[in-house]
């Protein structure tokens, strides 16, 4: 792996946790990134905010619990997690007990955030 210069990466997560395999693939990629010491921040938008729903139970679906996986982000030094405030309001979610600490952003703030990174990784 080339270690020449580290790129700043914002991962944008748009999918609900169990509707497609992409939510899990995204978390795996974020953790892999951190494992290779490449900094990565996360932004949950639209249906993606549902990944942060507290107390998920995926047992009956035979799938891994995405919420529980997200809880391990701080252990990998992934501490900047942003959410789409409008989507959080639309789903009437309370993120105060979510597995990770998030910061809510409005559309303007999300736009500004996205412009500040070398790469956007869309999932």
């Amino acid at each position, binding site marked *: 792996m080339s270690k020449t210069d*580290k790129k700043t990466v914002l991962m944008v997560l748009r999918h609900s946790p169990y509707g497609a395999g992409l939510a899990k693939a995204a978390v795996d990629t974020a953790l892999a990134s951190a494992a290779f010491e490449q900094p990565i921040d996360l932004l949950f938008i639209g249906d993606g905010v549902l990944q942060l729903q507290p107390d998920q139970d995926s047992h009956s679906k035979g799938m891994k619990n995405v919420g529980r996986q997200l809880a391990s982000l701080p252990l990998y030094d992934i501490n900047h997690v942003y959410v789409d405030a409008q989507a959080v309001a639309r789903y009437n979610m309370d993120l105060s007990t979510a597995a990770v600490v998030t910061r809510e952003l409005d559309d303007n703030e999300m736009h500004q955030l996205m412009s500040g990174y070398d790469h956007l*990784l869309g999932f």
Partner: protein
Amino acid sequence: MIYSLLVLSSPFSGHCSRSAAAFAQSAIARGHSIHRIFFLDAGTLASSANSVSAQGEQSAVTDWAELAGQHDIDLVICITSALKHGMLDQAEADRHERSSATISRAFTVSGLGQLVDACASSDRLITFGG
């Protein structure tokens, strides 16, 4: 400019996988370089060696095979997604006791580290599908 592409969509639904292959062709034609193309989730189906297109139709699988035939390009499929979708090279087929490999030789099976490296080593990383 150095590009890497991330392909998330199946080559059999929608146009994203074909758009990615077309983008790669155009970028090379304009003198840019493609560091790597990484296939994840259903995107890994692009490596299928046994897919047969209906007459008069062309799927993204053919596009990728053509691209690989014309240029020396690093096409990498994510191992976790690949195994799930039945996309095995000979080593994985042997390891998991399956009767044969199912992917084209143009593709390499590897881990997410290859995507992380693509991020670090490219000026632009473009996601197709998802």
